[in-house]
């Protein structure tokens, strides 16, 4: 597993989000994460079924303003409501490391 490190050169617009551990609600489009915990029992079952539970490497494809976070894992894409996203712990993976 790749270790999270300080991001060296990110565009200014994305600069504020540097998290070793954070929740999915902080995800921005284009970022990659490893899921570290799903805090909601029902969502955990669904996450396992879709292959997005603990240990899964996911990619945020869109962040709908004030709305859901859109995630992709392999060819599977799902939309997660903002409130639920706050209950999903992730670890940011910086590309090129």
């Amino acid at each position, binding site marked *: 597993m790749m270790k999270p490190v300080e991001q060296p050169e990110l565009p200014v617009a994305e600069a504020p989000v540097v998290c070793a551990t954070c929740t999915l609600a902080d995800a921005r489009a284009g970022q990659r994460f490893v899921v570290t915990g799903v805090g909601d029992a029902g969502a955990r079952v669904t996450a396992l*079924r879709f292959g997005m539970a*603990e240990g899964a490497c996911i990619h945020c494809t869109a962040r*709908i303003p004030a709305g859901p976070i*859109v995630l992709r894992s392999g*060819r*599977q894409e799902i*939309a997660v409501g903002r409130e639920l996203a706050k209950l999903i712990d992730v670890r940011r993976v910086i590309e090129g490391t």
Partner: protein
Amino acid sequence: MAHCAPAFDALGIREGAVVLVGNPNVGKSVVFGALTGTYVDVSNFPGTTVEITKGRMGDVDVVDTPGIYGVSSFNEEETVARDVVLGAARIVNVVDAVHLERDLFLTLQLADMGIPMVVALNMADEARREGVAVDRDLLEDLLGVPVVETVAVKGEGIGGLKVAIDHARPGHADPELLDVLCEATLQTGSRAEALLVLEGDEVVAERNGVAPGGMRDEIYTRRRVRVNDLVGHVVRAETRGASLKAKLSVWMMRPLTGIPMLAVLLFVMYEVLGVLIAGKVVGFTEGFMNSYWVPLVRGVLAHLAAPGSTVYTFLAGEFGVLTMTPTYLIGVILPLVTGFYLLLSLLEDSGYLPRIAALADRALTSLGLNGRAVIPLILGLGCVTMGTLTTRILGSKRERFIATALMAIAVPCSAQIAVIAALMTRVAWYDSLAYFAILIAIFVSVGTVLARITPGESTALLIDLPTLRLPRPGNVVRKSGLKVWNFMGEVAGFFLVGALLISTLQVTGALDWIQVVARPLTVGWLRLPPQAATAFVMGFVRRDFGAAGFFTMHLTDSQLLVAMVTITLFVPCIASVMVILKERGWRYLVGLVFGSVGLAFLLGGIVARVIALLGGA
């Protein structure tokens, strides 16, 4: 297996049934159609509103199940699928070759259950186009069951699948899980049920008189690891850059681009349903029925009963069972419902619907719902009855409560929209605009109030976004054809009863009496002609009946606006009332009926007064 026999008996499913299982939107019903041919039988699963489709392949019964992501009891569709699966002799598991990471999770659960099965690797052509290569031979080896590549929409691979069903066998289960299962099976007698008990399924545990197990997390996690491993071995996917599809997908969900796209869609729907079908097609079909069918029936009947007699009125009068009922069913409802289901199937097949859900999530959250509720709400635009049945997909009782009320009060159904669209051509543009503004305001206020007062908690959105694709015409026609057929069968009876009811009111003179009694309300409060009472009574039979009633009255623009607002908010039709009673119970229904009638008249009267203040005609 013995536990499920009653349900199977009730559905007339014989022993040795082949059951189709798969995730939603993998082409399961197309595979079902290809296996069984034309004769199918649709019935409700006992004790539920979930429909089960049954057909025959030679001597064997074939049963289709609702699309599910896993076998358990998280919602009604899953429980139905679970019980059908538990009674299956053999399973055809339909998987989408493009989404094996998702679909194989269910496949491995079925393998762990130990029921003989075959895997149909469907949409093989689409997978190739998407740059996904699946090693069928290796998948077959690793799963331990026959795997057949199919392109069901084109009928490819169906012959091979039929042959493979004879060679169905239990798949390779998780070896460590097998040890645990071995012991648990001694208690339940069936490995499939033992697995569900271990996974914490309370219903199955209770049936077996044992306590539900607490191994779900462990079993699911191990299963997920096995799926990822399998996919890693059998799938070779080219990684491609952000394609147009991926961009389009994001545009559909972002408000800035998504709202205009949704507006265009709704405009197209309105043009097709309201203008083309409700205007031109219905104009023709209804005209045809009125100028050929009705005179024919009346001509023949005049020889048997005197015009004006009770029998004549019931059969061929203004609301006659042989005149108005078929004219309305065939001339008006059939074209509208067909148009609506065709559009809806196009939306479903293209994958746009869940993206609308993501777009609307923020707005619906403030009404106590989540984005998923757009699906019943859009269906409600077609038919409130249909929409109410679909509230099942919502995650909590609270959401089902709110969505049902919103639909019954503030969402006009397609038949009603059609009549209202026709009425609208008679009024000035600002009256039409006022109608929409009032309706949206009501929708938002009712939702906001219900979100405050309804107990419980709403669930958050978590929805699968299937790959966008051009709808496949064969699939769309098949799906919508089946739905139209079921729907027409369902409403015909209610319609007949409605027509009889109105004729009874007419023959007994009750209609005139209601007109007199309701005078203070219709004339005094709403400032409409006394005949409006008839339209409201008819509106209870079917919402569009009510709106249509205003056609023949000579109303001013302002009266039309009042009439349209009142009749839209007025109680849902008899068919929806029945479904609401069945789904939500009588207390809910009584509250809803009083609430919507009260709100309809209150607002209608207020609109009438505001117009008068503004100096309208």
